[in-house]
């Protein structure tokens, strides 16, 4: 479950990683261009495309693109939290709203499960982990479990 099959693998080293935001077209990635040295890997899977950026810190960000060309899911893992505003785009205000409302699980993960926005984030110092996806953008017949 935790290994993924690279159908088509494109590796580029030392280039500037490009991030697309949740819910935005794949073509919009240039707008999110970060001046960060990292390793970028683009994969084509059955039913979706994956852009994976490994930063110098070891943090990995994965962006899942539907055949329709929209980013339907993002996932992250590693020593640092990615820039959520950049990663979630128009969905960032959802996170702001719900994150402020949840205070009960002291030190535990934050989980948001709404009809049009699913988000989970947890971990500890030097290791953070999470994902977000938009159910309505999920390609037909694709499980949200691909976002990992």
């Amino acid at each position: 479950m935790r290994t993924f099959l690279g159908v088509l693998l494109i590796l580029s080293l030392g280039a500037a990683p490009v991030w697309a935001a949740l819910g935005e077209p794949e073509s919009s990635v240039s707008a999110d261009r970060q001046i960060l040295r990292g390793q970028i890997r683009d994969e084509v899977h059955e039913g979706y495309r994956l852009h994976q950026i490994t930063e110098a810190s070891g943090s990995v960000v994965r962006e899942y693109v539907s055949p329709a060309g929209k980013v339907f899911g993002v996932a992250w893992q590693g020593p640092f939290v990615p820039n959520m505003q950049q990663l979630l785009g128009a969905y960032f205000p959802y996170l702001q709203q719900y994150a402020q409302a949840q205070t009960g699980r002291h030190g535990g993960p934050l989980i948001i499960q709404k009809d049009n926005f699913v988000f989970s984030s947890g971990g500890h110092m030097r290791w953070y982990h999470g994902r977000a996806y938009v159910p309505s953008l999920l390609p037909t017949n694709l499980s949200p479990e691909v976002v990992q």
Partner: protein
Amino acid sequence: MRRKNVSAPALASLWVVMAGGMFLASCGSGGTGNDIALPVITLSPVSASVPAGGPLQFTATIVSPTSTTVTWSVNNILGGNSTVGTISSSGLYIAPAAVPNPATVTVRCTSSAETNPYGSAIVTITPPVVNAVVAVAPTDSSTPAGTSVQFTATVTGTTNTAVTWSVNGVAGGNSTVGTINNASTAGLYTAPTAVPNPPTVVVTATSQADTSQMASTTLTLTASNTAPLYVNFGLNGNTGNPNTDYYNGLFTTVAVCLPATADCQIIPDVLVDTGSVGLRVLNSVLTTVPATELTTVRDSDGNQVQECVQFGDTSYAWGPALVADVVVAGERASSVPIQVIGDTTYTVPASSCLSLGPGPSLDTVAALGANGILGVGSFIQDCGLNCAGGQTFSGYPYYVCPNNVCTTAAVPVVQQVANPVAFFVKDNNGVEILLPSISSAGAPSLPYTNAAGTSLIPAGQLIFGVGTQSNNALGSATLYATDEYGNFPNVVYNGASYPSDGFLDTGSNALYVSDALTLGIADCTDNPYYCPATPLSLTLTTYGANGASGTVNLSVANADTLFGGNPGFAAFNNLGGASGDGLSSDYFDLGLPFFFGRSVFVGIAGTTVPNNASAPNGYFAF
């Protein structure tokens, strides 16, 4: 004859019985025969003790055929004097202020009649009585071996308020039970470097004015590497709202000191967190040792270093890195960088905290539920080499703010906010978390004492060092070397592997495991925890990078039942909740419930590992 004895000192004391012949025949013991021509004088009492400065009324009984006058003397001194005491014409003796030498004097009542017959009495002057009342503070306290406690004594009822201090009845104490000063800085107790058996001593202050008056208190000596651990609702208390209340909060007390000085502020209610690294204290809490007096951490251009720390639940903490001495139990971390959070000198940069983690800012007691966070996780610094070369990735935590514009900055490893344990002189390679077992129904708190004053559950212990003292040996614990991120390299649950997806975290208040669907149980509808119909047993297999493996048995109970059954309970060993929203986001954040009834070690990366085990990135052991 009838003799009249009057003892009340207020009454006239001289009784001359003008009896005439009709009484003489029946003259009693005071008489000398039937042909008494001269007065016979007897004093009452004939012997007595009186405290220095005190009064004593004498009564003279005179049997006399004629009228007579008398004089009173002490040691043949008419009316006495200040050395032997004075006596009035009515027989009221006032003892001298100090006990004379010898301490006995002779009081005489002498008749003016021929041959000057007299009656006499012996008086012994005793040391003065003072109504001294002694009280000592603090009472019933505890202190780590090798540390000092200043006791104070309050003496009332006498002008001489001096006391003599003793430990277990030995004036000044000794090296076994600890010493206490009787000269300068009187009352300063210094605990022995080794905890005596039994580990309690009695400190006593005895009034020097009246050595029969004293006050004592019991002092419990703890190991110098051991701090108490408390489990309770934290500083926001029990509001009865399970959506906000701080169940399973683990707290201890630390002191923040100006470097290399005794200027310290004791800070209770600091969260103990194996899931973070470094001490973070609220700015609003630092009063007697204000943040403005701590040494700043500056970058190569002289700008003061700020930090935005992220937590997994998207909450964050913003504030400067400052250098302080941090004292916990009997251990002192000298000049360790800490973070002061909630400092509003600089505005939180929108590019960092607010974008990275848009959750609550943990900048007040209300938001944090504690006065600070003591991060004792498995690293020395909170960032490490990643932050030493400047920003090369998103989520970078360190900033400088020249001209009020905050930008990321490189901070050398040694200047980064660090685990105070790693800065202790000894016992600096990790911690042991020792919590007592509690009932599956939970417990009100740790420690817990019932209304009758009986201790039912002890406090936990935060023991510094692993394998450095007799009280922190690994024993039979299995050591699991963690990976570079501080996780078990692998956890297996129900046949599924979770690589680098499991860790132990006292700063998480529940067992955050998997998701409800995967576990086949239900989330609660009215709180953020799990509500299985019957308690769920989970068995995990944990793996270490050193090849170790073992099983962990956990239980997750219905949170509604737990909270409803005992609304005042703060401690639960079976409170659980979802870690993810589905299988792909699940992981195992084993929070405080895991620690009850266990002895758990967290080893710091890069330090000495017991038994020569290979754990370069740190370890868990239990």
